[in-house]
């Protein structure tokens, strides 16, 4: 199993694309694999014949575990090896392999050279780059966890396999699970994904955690736990934005959403307030010059945050086009890792779901996220008279280790000013 995303620790084989016996060329898609973020293609690194699917479709396999064997037709595949392979001691990822034999030290679980020369080939390393080590898993795939952590995991039905242990040598300890078991609180979800209802007559339904759900839980809980967050809310008058948007859309060439406009405004405001465009890096803060805005996209069974890169430098139409494309492919689980990592600040929007205002959870290592509420007509006192105005509430979650209250407030003031005077966005 290759690591198909930077955070992937295990993957689920969705479907085998090459059946046993089929010829395989370098670059052929062997299988679709669901990672913690997306469904990715597992690609052949060597040519030959698909001799064996070591794991069946549907199985979840830790990174670096053997999933299939590619070799010469007729080559023997040792049964025992077909079940499970020891993790690599040479640091190389286990993958579909058909490199020529090369003498090397026997590995644990592999037959000694000379005793099973053909079978030994199945364990041969490929030229693949090293896989990131699984957090708390040892070389043999055994998860290192304290007895208490194991007990809690068993009680709560948690899978320790992907959990990053904070103890010595990556040991998973109680506090690592406190984060894992915490509920991912109100996170942005613009489109409520299809929810599988509980069958009639059942008091409840237990749904196993998908890879993405596990990752969401872990990441968000990590945020809420250690990140000292505070919240700032500001109300913005959106009359002029609405007018501008109407004019833009009337001009054709694709539609621009309030969301797109807000992203652009956020990007520009960040440029003016680099103190908010930063990453918390434990022992240092990384302030970004570039502005990459992550936007939360609800997908079936979760959310993902594709990134509009250099959003400050892009026109509204380009932002609109990109966000549409990214959101679409996100829902199809077709994003590449590069497309959903590397943001410097996030935007989350539940306005279309009539949410007045909410607090979003920071996406570490980013230091801030803007939660966008609905745009609604509200009575506003203007020049001594009560008039109806389109208003929108923005709530910014700030990592206090990076952003202080006044810093965040000033940023919001700028943002508000831009939205209330959208010409600023054009210039």
């Amino acid at each position, binding site marked *: 199993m290759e690591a198909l995303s930077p955070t992937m620790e295990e993957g689920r084989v969705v479907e085998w694309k090459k059946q046993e016996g089929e010829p395989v060329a370098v670059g052929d898609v062997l299988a679709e694999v669901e990672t913690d973020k997306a469904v990715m293609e597992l690609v052949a690194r060597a040519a030959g014949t698909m001799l064996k699917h070591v794991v069946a479709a549907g199985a979840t396999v830790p990174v670096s575990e053997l999933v299939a064997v590619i070799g010469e037709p007729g080559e023997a595949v040792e049964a025992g090896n077909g079940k499970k392979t020891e993790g690599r001691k040479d640091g190389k990822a286990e993958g579909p392999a058909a490199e020529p034999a090369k003498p090397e030290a026997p590995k644990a679980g592999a037959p000694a050279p000379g005793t099973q020369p053909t079978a030994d080939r199945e364990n041969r390393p490929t030229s693949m780059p090293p896989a990131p080590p699984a957090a708390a898993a040892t070389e043999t795939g055994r998860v290192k966890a*304290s*007895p*208490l*952590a*194991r*007990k809690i995991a068993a009680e709560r039905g948690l899978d320790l396999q992907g959990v990053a242990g*904070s103890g*010595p040598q990556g040991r998973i*300890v*109680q506090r690592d699970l406190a984060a894992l078991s915490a509920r991912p609180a109100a996170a942005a979800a613009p489109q409520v994904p299809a929810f599988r209802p509980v069958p009639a007559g059942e008091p409840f339904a237990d749904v196993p955690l998908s890879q993405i759900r596990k990752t969401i839980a872990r990441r968000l809980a990590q945020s809420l736990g250690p990140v000292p967050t505070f919240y700032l809310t500001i109300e913005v008058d959106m009359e002029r934005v609405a007018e501008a948007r109407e004019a833009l859309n009337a001009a054709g060439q694709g539609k621009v959403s309030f969301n797109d406009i807000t992203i652009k405004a956020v990007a520009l405001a960040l440029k003016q307030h680099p103190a908010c465009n930063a990453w918390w890096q434990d022992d240092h803060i990384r302030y970004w010059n570039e502005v990459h805005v992550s936007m939360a996209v609800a997908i079936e069974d979760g959310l993902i945050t594709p990134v509009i890169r250099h959003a400050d430098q892009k026109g509204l139409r380009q932002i609109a086009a990109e966000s549409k494309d990214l959101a679409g492919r996100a829902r199809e689980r077709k994003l590449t890792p590069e497309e959903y990592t590397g943001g410097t600040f996030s935007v989350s929007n539940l306005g279309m779901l009539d949410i007045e205002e909410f607090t979003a959870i920071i996406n570490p290592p980013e230091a801030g996220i803007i939660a966008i509420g609905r745009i609604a007509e509200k009575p506003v006192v203007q020049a001594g008279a009560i008039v109806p105005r389109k208003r929108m509430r923005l709530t910014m979650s700030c990592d206090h280790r990076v952003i202080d209250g006044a810093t965040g407030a000033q940023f919001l003031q700028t943002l508000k000013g831009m939205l209330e005077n959208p010409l600023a966005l054009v210039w």
Partner: protein
Amino acid sequence: MPTLTYRDALNQALREEMQRDDRVFLMGEEVGVYQGAYKVSRGLLEEFGARRVVDTPITELGFAGVGVGAAMVGLRPVIEMMTFNFALLAVDQIVNSAAKMRYMSNGQVGVPMVVRGPGGAALQLGAQHSQAFESWYAHIPGLKVVMPATPADAKGLLKSAIRDDNPVIFIEGEMLYNTKGEVPEGEYTIPLGVADIKREGTDVTIVCHSKTVAVALKAAEQLAADGISAEVIDLRTIRPLDTGTVLESVARTHRCVVVEEGWHFAGVGAQVVDTIQREIFDALDAPVLRVTGAEVPMPYNKQLEKLAKADPAKVIAAVRQVLYVD
């Protein structure tokens, strides 16, 4: 509640038990005319006479054996060892005679005897006078081993030890004799084999006994300043070990550090750790750590001696380690 020194609390216990039971007598080096090497027996010779407060020659094996023999035929000797370093000479009598008599006689002959005196290091007494031997005695089936840390415990436990029908090794602390504490007035005893929670806490359990109770309490106080809540359990009796109190606590805190004055290898803490991992393995969030004396004969030099002893800093470091802080 009156405040007494540990020394005077022991003195009260001896006095009360000797008043209560004529079979009880005190024997040892300098217990009578000299009033006790550490003055624990002050005034007893005057009150009870030379029949019951018996000065001995320097002959630890001999008078330990005298104690065993007298106990075998119905007396209840309290044998004072000037220190437990000297009791090494009497180990044959304690282990081969006292601990085994009841068993090898098929229950016919018991040895209701207390062997008491200070154990462990004091200050700069050097290698032969600074040793904690409780694990030696605790290893022996047939012996009970009691180690009070406070004046109140000292009194209540010594009275129970004297009334116990088994040989009891009662190890005091030279550095404890002058410590003060509240001691209940009037008749009271503390049962052997019952640990005491000296401080309640939620994050980690520190198991200790005798002099290391003060060490653990000091550590707990400093840890509290860092927001770490440590529970301090004073074993009080090493054998029989109150595993229930320890297990109940560690099951709550999930982390444990065991502190003792003696050496690491096969020490009392090793038994505590064994019990914890065997009984409540699933409650543990970290390996149980031990803080002990250094694995060296005690050096004379003051700085080196300090390095060799368990102290609050070492306890704090161990606690932080089991909590994965640092």
